[in-house]
């Protein structure tokens, strides 16, 4: 039996209305779900990098040694490895060491007291929308490693 023109119109209208609701709900679910997944990965990465920085030997014979140490911490956040092999993929999609901020908090004697590790600027492209994280997630870990002011980074 064929549908009448009237009924076909109704069905089309219902489909249009329900599809609009369903697709927008689906888009929202994908957008937020993926963004939350990425944020959770960033929290884990920053936490691991912070813990590594806290336990690492702090060498500060020259300013370049401090920078080398920071580069190792950034690599730990991004690749899960202080000295990644060439071609290693980041643990979080599109994250690069330049997007990670590492700042040492020094005590009165100039030695390291704590370390701040944060994601400086990261954009999540979640298909239906774009989210930008600046300065978060951020962690602060106390320094519990060895302080070696006369040593140089290998």
């Amino acid at each position: 039996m064929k549908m009448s023109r009237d009924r076909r119109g109704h069905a089309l209208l219902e489909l249009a209305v329900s599809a609009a609701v369903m697709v927008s709900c689906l888009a929202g679910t994908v957008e937020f779900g993926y963004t939350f997944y990425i944020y959770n990965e960033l929290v884990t990465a920053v936490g691991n990098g912070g813990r590594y920085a806290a336990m690492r030997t702090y060498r500060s014979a020259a300013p370049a040694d401090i920078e080398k140490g920071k580069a190792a911490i950034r690599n730990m956040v991004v690749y899960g490895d202080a000295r990644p092999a060439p071609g290693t993929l980041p643990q979080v999609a599109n994250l690069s060491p330049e997007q990670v901020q590492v700042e040492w908090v020094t005590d009165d004697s100039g030695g390291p007291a704590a370390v701040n590790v944060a994601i400086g600027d990261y954009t999540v492209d979640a298909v239906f929308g774009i989210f930008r994280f600046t300065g978060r997630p951020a962690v602060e870990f106390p320094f519990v490693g060895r302080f070696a002011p006369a040593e140089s980074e290998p």
Partner: protein
Amino acid sequence: MRVRRHKKDAGFVLIAMSVALVLLLAVMGMSFDFGRIYIARNEAQVFTDAASMAAAAKLDGTDAGLDRARQAVARLPMRWNLGTKSFTGVVVEFSPDKQSWARVTAPDNQVEITFLRAVGGPDVFTVPAHSVAAAKPVRLVE
């Protein structure tokens, strides 16, 4: 000829849509609310990890050391709920000898539920976390 909708058909789409919408809300809730819960859980765990290390590093067997440990935990600037809320009600405990270990518990992190509440879920979900750290930690050689 104009064919009218059968009486049995009338309102079917409305009922089907309502059922589908409830299911959709549940799926959205799983994605949105569980996503936030997992993030809060992770943020709280990273905080208690850092806080227990900060507390344990101050221990020296004296009561003054315990005070310094509590202050070190209170000073930590870390936040949760996508980096927007401070941790409250944080409990710091120590080994009986006041110098071996510190344990930090963040018990009050209540995530407000948005979608699952509409399909019978709770209003808030608490995600506690706790960590223990030794006063003499393992140090990395590198």
